[in-house]
C-alpha cells in the first residue's frame, strides 16, 4: 500500500512538472494565432455544432492557404460541449490549457452564457456564431454573429404585420429553453403595435416534447390562421406531422431554429411546404459571396450548408478583419489581444455570407438586415 501511494505521488508530481513545462514553452512564443471553438458535435444539437465547426474550418483553411492574417497562420481547435453548460466550461478549460487566444463559441445559447462568465474573468475575446440569447454578450468581451433573440422576435412580429400574413396568430414555444422563450417574449411585445392578434400561446418543455396535440388543438380552436414556432426544427418536424394528421393547415412562421428541417432524414418535406422563416442565409442565394461559400462547402463536406455553417464561416472572417484592424501579434497574450479586439470590433464593417455591411455595437450585438425565406419545392426561396 505504501509503495502504491508513493507511486501515485510520483506520478502526480511528474504530471505537474509536465503541465508546467507545457505552460512555459507555449506562452507568448508561438508564431500562429490560436483560435478555439466550442459547440455540440455529439448529442441532440450536434447538427449545429458540426455545421459551425465545418464552416470555421473551411474559412481557416482558406485564410491559411491565402497566407494567413497579416502573414500569420491560424491554428484551430474545436471542442465538444454536447449542448451542456457544464461540459462547455470543461471544453473552455481544455482550450485554456492549449493556450487559446481567441474563442469562437459557443454554438448554442445556454452553454455560451456559462462560458462568458469564464472568458470574461480571464479576459479572452469571445465571438459566438449562433448563440442568440442576449446574455451571450453580457460582458464587453463577447460579440455575436447572429441576431439576438429580441431582434428575431421583434423582427418576426414586424414582418408578419407589415406583410399582412395573418390576423390571428398562435405561438407554440419551449418554455424550458432560453432561446425559445427569449424570442417568444420579444414577439409578444413586438406584436402589440402590429395589426394582428395573438390568440393562443402554448408552451412545452424539454421533458414533454413528443405530443403536441393539445397545443395544436388550442391553436385550431382559437381560429389561428398562422402559427409562430420560435423553436428548433426537430420539434417543428413533429408539430408539422401532427398538424397534418389532425387536418390543421395554418401558415407557419419561424426563426433560424427552423433551419435544418429539410435535412431531417426521411422527413416528408412536402409537409414543410410554405413554411416561412427568418434566416440570414439561404443556400440557393445567388449573391456572389454566398454562392462561393456554398459551393466550397459542398465540395469539401458533400452536403448543403445550413445557416450555422455560414455563421461559423463568417465568425472566422470577422475575427480576421478585427485582428487586422487591431494589429495584434501572435506573441501577444490572450488578454492583450482581447483588449485590442474589443475596440476594433466597433470600427469594422464586414461583408459576410450572413449579411452585407455587418457592424457591431460595443454591447456585442450585430447590426444587419434580416431576410425571410419560404420553403418551396423542398428548398429555400426568397420571400417576395
Amino acid at each position, binding site marked *: 500500500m505504501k509503495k502504491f501511494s508513493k507511486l501515485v505521488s510520483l506520478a502526480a508530481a511528474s504530471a505537474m512538472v509536465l503541465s508546467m513545462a507545457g505552460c512555459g514553452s507555449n506562452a507568448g512564443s508561438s508564431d500562429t494565432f490560436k483560435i478555439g471553438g466550442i459547440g455540440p458535435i455529439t448529442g441532440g444539437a450536434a447538427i449545429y455544432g458540426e455545421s459551425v465547426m465545418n464552416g470555421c474550418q473551411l474559412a481557416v483553411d482558406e485564410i491559411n492557404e491565402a497566407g494567413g492574417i497579416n502573414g500569420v497562420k491560424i491554428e484551430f481547435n474545436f471542442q465538444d460541449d454536447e449542448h451542456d453548460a457544464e461540459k462547455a466550461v470543461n471544453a473552455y478549460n481544455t482550450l485554456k490549457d492549449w493556450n487559446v487566444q481567441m474563442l469562437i463559441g459557443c454554438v448554442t445559447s445556454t452553454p455560451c452564457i456559462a462560458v462568458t462568465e469564464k472568458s470574461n474573468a480571464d479576459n479572452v475575446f469571445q465571438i459566438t456564431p449562433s448563440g442568440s440569447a442576449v446574455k451571450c454578450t453580457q460582458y464587453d468581451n463577447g460579440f455575436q454573429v447572429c441576431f439576438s433573440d429580441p431582434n428575431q422576435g421583434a423582427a418576426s412580429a414586424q414582418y408578419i404585420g407589415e406583410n399582412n400574413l395573418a390576423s390571428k396568430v398562435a405561438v407554440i414555444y419551449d418554455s424550458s429553453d432560453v432561446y425559445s422563450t427569449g424570442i417568444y417574449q420579444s414577439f409578444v411585445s413586438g406584436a402589440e403595435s402590429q395589426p394582428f392578434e395573438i390568440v393562443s400561446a*402554448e408552451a412545452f418543455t424539454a421533458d414533454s416534447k413528443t405530443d403536441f396535440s393539445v397545443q395544436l388543438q388550442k391553436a385550431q380552436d382559437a381560429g389561428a390562421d398562422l402559427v409562430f414556432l420560435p423553436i428548433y426544427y426537430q420539434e417543428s418536424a413533429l408539430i408539422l406531422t401532427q398538424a397534418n394528421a389532425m387536418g390543421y393547415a395554418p401558415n407557419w412562421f419561424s426563426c433560424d431554429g427552423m433551419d435544418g428541417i429539410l*435535412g431531417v432524414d426521411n422527413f416528408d418535406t412536402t409537409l414543410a411546404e410554405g413554411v416561412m422563416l427568418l434566416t440570414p442565409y439561404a443556400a440557393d442565394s445567388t449573391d456572389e459571396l454566398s454562392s462561393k461559400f456554398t459551393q466550397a462547402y459542398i465540395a469539401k463536406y458533400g452536403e448543403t450548408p445550413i445557416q450555422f455553417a455560414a455563421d461559423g464561416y463568417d465568425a472566422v472572417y470577422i475575427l480576421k478583419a478585427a485582428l487586422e484592424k487591431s494589429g495584434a501579434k501572435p506573441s501577444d497574450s490572450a488578454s492583450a489581444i482581447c483588449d485590442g479586439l474589443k475596440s476594433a470590433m466597433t470600427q469594422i464593417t464586414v461583408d459576410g455570407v450572413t449579411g452585407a455591411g455587418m457592424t457591431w455595437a460595443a454591447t456585442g450585438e450585430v447590426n444587419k438586415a434580416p431576410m425571410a425565406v419560404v420553403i418551396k419545392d423542398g428548398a429555400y426561396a426568397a420571400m417576395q
Partner: protein
Amino acid sequence: MSFISYLINGISLGSVYALIALGYTMVYGIAKMLNFAHGDVIMIGAFTTYTVCSIAGLPPVLGVLVAVVFCTLLGMLIERVAYKPLRKAASPLAVLITAIGVSYFLQNIALLIFGANAKSFTSIVTLESVKLAGGQITVTGETIVTIVVCIIIMILLTLFINKTKAGQAMLAVSEDKGAAQLMGINVDATIALTFAIGSALASIAGVLLCSAYPQLTPYTGSMPGIKAFVAAVFGGIGSIPGAFIGGILLGVIEIFGKAYISSQMADAIVFAVLILVLLVKPTGLLGKNIQEKV
C-alpha cells in the same frame, strides 16, 4: 367537443406509455430489478425497424419481426453480460447503477452509428384515420393499433404467466428465488426468459411509439421510458393490468393537465397526482399488499 378529442389524445399517448410500462413491470415483478435501460431498448427497436424499412426498403412486417428478434437477443445479452454477474452482489444498488450504465451505453452506440440528427420515422401502420362527429374528431390509425396491440399483449402476458409452466416458474422465482431453485426451477433461465420477453415488448413499443410520434433520435426512448416507469409505479409495479391502467391514466392526466391547467405545468401535474396516489395507496393502484412476516 374538444374535451373528447383531448380524451382521445390522452388515451393515445397513454397507450404508448402502457405498452412500455408492461415490459418494465414484468421485469420488475419477476427479476425484482429496475431495468432503466428498457427505454433505450425501445430506441434500438425503433432504429432496427427504421434501418430495415426506410434504409433497406423492405416491408414493414419484416421490419417489426427483425426488430423483435434483434431486441430479444439484445435483452438476453444485456442480462447475461451486465446484470447476471451482479445478481449476488451485496447491494441491490449495484445492478441499478449498471442499468443506468447500460442505458448510456446504448444511447452512445446509437449516436455513433446513426448520428445525432433526428430522423423521421415512416409509420408502419397503414390503417386509415377514423373521423367522428362529422369530421370534428380524428382518431388516427396509430392510436387504434396501439390500444389494440396493448390489450392483446396484456391478455397474452396474463395467460402466459398463469397458464404455462414457464409462466408458473416466473411466478415462483418472483416469490422466492431460493425456494424456486430448490423446487428444481432453473432460476437463471427463467430470468433470461423474462428479459427476452420484456425486450421483445420493448421493440414493439418502440415501433408503435415512433409510428405515433414519428421522430427518432438516440434519446427517443429515455423520456417515454421514465414516464412509463412512473406509469408502472402508478398502477402498482409488478402488476400487469396495473401497468395498463397506470399508462392510460398517466397519458390522460398529462393531456388534460396541459389542456385545462397549464401547458408548462404538465409534468408537475402528472407527478403531483403520482405523489397523491402513493400517499393514499403506497403500492400503487393495483399493487399487492405484501405483508412482512417476522
